[in-house]
């Protein structure tokens, strides 16, 4: 482990009057794949959104590279290098694949698509297609491809394999492993076998708090994770 790229400390977030996250603390190291598991409604998406700036935490801190990210606008946080990929697999339907990527380049000033196309060669074939006509797997590839422009520090992935065909899931699994060499990944997932296959660390979240932090690779197994759900 070569150093922390993202540290969350004492995070408390509420939706209006309803408190959803209670005192969450977690750390992500460079080149790590950290997974968050938990039941629906446990607060996993809220956590990612709070880190990415879409929700403003009531208290706590989110730091990366000695910069406190709490209170910054989401686009500033993304520019800083923490990119959030939401659950909805929504790309910009009316724009072509090329234009979707162009937007990513425009935001990050990174016009070199070699890396993206290396990870997702299929996108090259789909360049001129309107993103609305892509399959679920292709959309996910586009979303991730778009996000890795600008070499982000951390990717926050919200249930990336949900609803995708097993073949695509395997592809993504390998892609994640390759990605993590340059970009730390924080993955929220329900797919436990996938989590256990690639994660360096697993946090189990229940009712808005972290009930377990599994750092020992030996212990990252499906039965262990299930115990905490």
């Amino acid at each position, binding site marked *: 482990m070569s150093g922390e790229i993202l540290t969350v400390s004492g995070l408390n977030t509420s939706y209006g009057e309803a408190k959803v996250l209670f005192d969450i603390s977690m750390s992500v190291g460079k080149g790590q794949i950290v997974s968050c598991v938990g039941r629906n409604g446990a607060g996993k998406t809220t956590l990612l959104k709070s880190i990415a700036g879409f929700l403003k935490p009531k208290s706590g801190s989110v730091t990366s590279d000695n910069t406190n990210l709490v209170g910054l606008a989401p*686009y500033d946080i*993304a520019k800083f290098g923490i*990119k*959030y*990929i939401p659950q909805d697999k929504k790309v910009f339907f009316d*724009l072509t694949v090329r234009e979707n990527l162009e*937007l990513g380049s*425009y*935001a990050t000033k990174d016009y070199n698509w070699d890396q993206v196309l290396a990870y997702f060669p299929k996108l090259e074939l789909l360049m001129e297609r309107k993103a609305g006509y892509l399959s679920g797997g292709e959309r996910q590839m586009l979303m991730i491809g778009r996000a890795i422009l*600008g070499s982000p520090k951390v990717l926050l992935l919200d249930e990336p394999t949900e609803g995708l065909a097993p073949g695509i899931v395997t592809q993504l699994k390998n892609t994640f492993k390759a990605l993590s060499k340059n970009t730390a990944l924080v993955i929220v997932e329900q797919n436990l076998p996938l989590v256990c296959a690639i994660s360096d660390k697993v946090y189990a979240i229940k009712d808005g708090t972290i009930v377990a932090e599994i750092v020992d690779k030996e212990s990252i197994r499906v039965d262990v994770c299930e115990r905490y759900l």
Partner: protein
Amino acid sequence: MIRGHEAMISSQLLISGVIFGLSIGSIYFLLAIGLSLCFGLMRIISLDQLLYYSLGAYLTYTVTLMTGSMWIGVLAGMAFSGVASLAVERFIFRRIYARDPTFSMITSFGILIGGVGIIKYFWGVVPRPVEVPTLIQVGIFGTEIPVYRLIVVAIACVVYIAIWFFLHRTIVGKAIRAAIEDVEHVEGLGINVSRLFTITFVIAGALSGLAGGLHAPLIMVDPSMGLETLAFVFMVVIIGGLGSIKGTLISALVVGQVVSLGSIIYAPMAQMAPFVIMLLVLLIKPTGLYGSAVISR
């Protein structure tokens, strides 16, 4: 009603009616585009566009008096409206983006009414005439048509093409289209959506100012012009569907023709006809011809 030997005149009336309708439709289009864009992107109903319309007209009047050229007046009107909308966006709308659209409706209505007050203060209540810049008439199919009206239609066409080009061929325009689909996703990429909002709002304001400036020679410029046009712009926007440029264009054309040709047939009904059309459209499609069904946010 048209009968017998008047049939010969009627074709002339018809042609001038159509052209008239096109020019009116052009004005509505310029106004409705602003409203539609603001709604599509920022989910606000910007009734204050009608204020920038009025300001555009009044500035055109004043600057025309000063310089003798109506076109300089129109440019001045556009510029002033752009600045005014920038100020309003910065100080007022920025605070209410997160609230629901009806909130913005009330607020922008307040701005509109307050603006009417400001106009009254500076220009008084007496209607102001603005001279048509050119009195040349052109013969089309045997009817004399004022060139000015054709110029208005031409300008609207140019604007439509320009907007299309902006939205489809420039990166900022594409970002705006993407944000119309989903603002959060655009933000998540690292694009400053706040700036996108401002750009869109100012474009809308400038277009509304242009509409006012162009309309000024055709009507009397008076403080309540914004409120009177308001209902028609509403109808155009609702029929076309909020948020759709294509819908706005079609709807503006239709309403323009209806008002114009309607006033040839029976004047009072001309004002009512768009309303009836609107009701009919809403019966079939409650979101307008091209409107999107969901406002989720």
